[in-house]
């Protein structure tokens, strides 16, 4: 907790220095000393620096650059999670808890929106307030969706899955994490400045001309992007450089492949959204006019740059969810992952193609006389995506399906994304998109893609790895109850929205025509039920984490490396580096062994004779 107080102190000092310094310069040049938006932006840059230095970068890291002894806070137990701790397992839990809390808050925003939409007219929110809540729901969920699986399980599980001791850059990893709690705080601060009403997309020129709350979206999104880029560098380096001996690319667990692909996208694409958000800020605080047509700017340019990141970002959200599903499905089908190499090719094909499809968000923008290239690339991206379905179906076919909660969620990822994928084909088709763009069809479609991959994928990962990261077992009956409750209500909430879209209800509206009232009431009621399903999840998570029965180290009898160490794993993960000698998913293959784990004799004794045991001795 001490580091958080130091961080907050650093942020306050930073803000005063930054905003005060700007005021002094303005005063010296004869301007009025305080101008709100430049003051906040410059103040924030220094405040963020102060926060990072205070929270641990100075003590743990930067002191060394000046020849001073590095100071670590030696804390144990739960206090580690409030500390600048470079252990990837601590960071994984930090991400998990932060983002699950954000997800629940975003869910509450959704409940507020659906309450307003119960009736066609105005109930308790005026359109401005509705737009603020809608923007907050959108941006909170975008943050959760781009971060939660890779932040939580990428960090926690990737080093374990590849037999490494930690991430490649542990302190950078802690830095990436400690950037993230800043983002929701910034986004909520916007409410003190009339909020921002331009949605998570923040289209210019609206975002250049609206209230000052807008800049908190820009600053928050940029901070998130910074964290994402640093995290991506870390994942790529870790996966390339720290694989255990014998962990060839062809033996890499599929979840690691999904994080690898995601990291490529984050690293290469995030810069573009960073730039475009900066341009909007400069339009606002420096009057640059990048998006002002009257001054030679181009409003549509915003959308090109925005979607050049934000479409790949859709796959940043989807791929880890696919990865989690495809990771779980073979273990619970007791069969090798079918067409492993095709699934990997699917991920990499999506990575490449996703950079070429961005303008399918802009078919109605008047960007060009010829939208054809983007229709072609968008239709083609269904081919590598199809490989993921091939792998999933091929694995469960003739399998021995063990329908535990993680498996159910894994299969739900596939089912829900099927609907998300097929309905995306309509939007990729230029003529049909002219009607469906900006209607509830789009709302239903992207919830079917993003919630199904990232949120159902998150649940897959949480239930699957729960015994690993907590050392305890969740309640299976509550898990199944949560699954069926959430799965059914998710579908009854979002399927009717397709119909609303066809029937001509446009999105992002607080009020709508009375003709759409009945179906919206149904959607709202169903959404409330879906929201309630998270209470089951939350109870199971919290209760089982605190009081659940002790879990075995490998309750699923899975072959991959993370299960071949204790639960939760010791600081160094494995007593000694494991040696990988076979494929991870070869269930039923006689004599197949994934890895040899050197066993140490005692808990502390490091140099015991390397008695290599095969996990699955020849049978």
């Amino acid at each position: 907790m001490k580091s958080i107080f130091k961080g907050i102190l650093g942020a306050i000092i930073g803000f005063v220095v930054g905003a005060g310094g700007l005021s002094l310069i303005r005063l010296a040049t004869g301007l009025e000393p305080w101008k709100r938006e430049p003051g906040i932006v410059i103040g924030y840059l220094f405040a963020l620096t102060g926060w990072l230095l205070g929270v641990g970068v100075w003590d743990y890291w930067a002191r060394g650059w000046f020849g001073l002894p590095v100071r670590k806070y030696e804390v144990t137990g739960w206090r580690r999670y409030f500390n600048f701790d470079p252990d990837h397992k601590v960071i994984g839990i930090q991400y998990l808890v932060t983002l699950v809390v954000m997800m629940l808050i975003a869910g509450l925003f959704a409940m507020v929106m659906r309450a307003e939409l119960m009736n066609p007219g105005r109930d308790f929110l005026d359109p401005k307030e509705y737009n603020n809540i809608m923007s907050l729901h959108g941006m909170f969920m975008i943050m959760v969706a781009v971060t939660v699986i890779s932040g939580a399980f990428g960090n926690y599980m990737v080093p374990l899955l590849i037999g490494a001791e930690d991430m490649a850059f542990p302190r950078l990893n802690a830095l990436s994490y400690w950037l993230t709690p800043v983002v929701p705080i910034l986004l909520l601060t916007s409410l003190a400045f009339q909020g921002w009403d331009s949605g998570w997309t923040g289209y210019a020129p609206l975002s250049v001309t609206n209230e000052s709350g807008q800049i908190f979206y820009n600053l928050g999104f940029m901070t998130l992007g910074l964290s994402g880029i640093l995290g991506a560098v870390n994942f790529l380096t870790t996966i390339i450089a720290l694989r255990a001996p014998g962990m060839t690319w062809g033996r890499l667990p599929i979840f690691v492949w999904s994080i690898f692909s995601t990291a490529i996208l984050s690293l290469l694409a995030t810069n573009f959204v960073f730039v475009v958000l900066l341009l909007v800020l400069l339009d606002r605080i420096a009057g640059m006019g990048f998006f002002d047509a009257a001054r030679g700017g181009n409003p549509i340019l915003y959308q090109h740059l925005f979607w050049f990141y934000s479409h790949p970002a859709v796959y940043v959200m989807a791929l880890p969810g696919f990865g989690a599903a495809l990771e779980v499905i073979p273990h619970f089908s007791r069969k090798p992952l079918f067409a492993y190499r095709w699934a990997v090719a699917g991920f990499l094909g999506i990575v490449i193609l996703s950079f070429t499809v961005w303008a399918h968000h802009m078919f109605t923008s008047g960007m060009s006389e010829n939208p054809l290239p983007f229709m072609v690339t968008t239709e083609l991206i269904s081919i590598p995506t199809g490989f993921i379905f091939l792998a999933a179906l091929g694995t469960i076919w003739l399998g021995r399906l063990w329908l535990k909660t993680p498996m159910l969620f894994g299969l739900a990822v596939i089912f829900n994304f099927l609907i998300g994928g097929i309905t995306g084909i309509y939007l990729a088709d230029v003529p049909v998109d002219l009607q469906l763009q900006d209607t509830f069809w789009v709302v239903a479609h992207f919830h079917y893609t993003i919630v199904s991959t990232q949120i159902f994928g998150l649940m897959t990962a949480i239930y699957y790895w729960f015994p690993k990261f907590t050392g305890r077992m969740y309640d299976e009956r509550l898990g199944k109850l949560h699954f069926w409750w959430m799965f059914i209500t998710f579908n009854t909430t979002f399927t009717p929205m397709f119909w609303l879209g066809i029937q001509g209800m446009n999105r992002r509206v607080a009020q709508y025509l009375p003709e759409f009232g009945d179906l919206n009431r149904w959607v709202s009621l169903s959404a409330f039920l879906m929201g309630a399903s998270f209470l089951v999840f939350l109870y199971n998570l919290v209760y089982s984490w605190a009081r659940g029965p002790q879990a075995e180290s490998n309750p699923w009898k899975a072959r991959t490396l993370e299960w071949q160490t204790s639960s939760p794993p010791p600081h160094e993960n494995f007593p000694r580096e494991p040696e990988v000698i076979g494929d991870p998913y070869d269930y039923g293959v006689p004599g197949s062994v994934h890895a040899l784990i050197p066993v140490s004799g005692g808990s502390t004794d490091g140099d015991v004779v390397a008695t290599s045991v095969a996990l699955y001795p020849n049978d």
Partner: protein
Amino acid sequence: MKRDFFFAGLLWIVLTFAGITLVSQINLFPLSAAHEADIIDEAFLFLTLLGVPVFAFVLVGLIYSVIRFRQPGEMPEDGPPIRTSRPVTWAWLGITSALAVFIIFNPGLKGIRELTANREPDLVVQVEMRKWNWTFSYPQYGVAVVDAQELVLPVDRHIRFEVTSTDIIHSFWIPAFRMKVDAVPGQINILYATPTETGSFEDDINLRAQCAELCGTGHPRMRAGLRILESAEFEAWVAGQAAGSP
């Protein structure tokens, strides 16, 4: 194993037929009031008919496996070690690629061609959008309706809409025409439509012009009724407007 393929295949055929029957029985679409709307509805319907067997295929794969291959109780034995199958993977690649390429041409390219085939308008209507109002102008008649509550169009004439905005981005959407185009400051975006039905917003809510791009507080209420008149009625209306204009 052969039995499993047979029953799953049978289930797939049954579901596909049921789905296609359902899709062709129910009326998917709201009122269509333009030639272009029929092209777009046809594309939608075509994609749905193609989507049904695809959806049914994956659905059967999931449901059949879950019911047939589930093992109740404790952890099951290992299944058959099938790593991959060359015929299956290449067939999958071939079929999915063929489908993807096919829909690029039909309905994609075909639809675009049909929508842009006629670029010779009988009537030009300029649409100027701003927070949160509309101006509809008819330059051939020298008529401009400022702060319009209603957009008036003649039936059976090929209309070119020239859409722009004076402040931020809006979007000009007529649900009964199934088309929208954004109103972007400093730029004129074009949309062609040929109304085929007469009527007004009071008859059917799809006869309306609706802003479809988030534009701030007034966005939900930014709409204007659409009234489509017989040619002679339209001439009378526009003459009245011309006389009434200062």
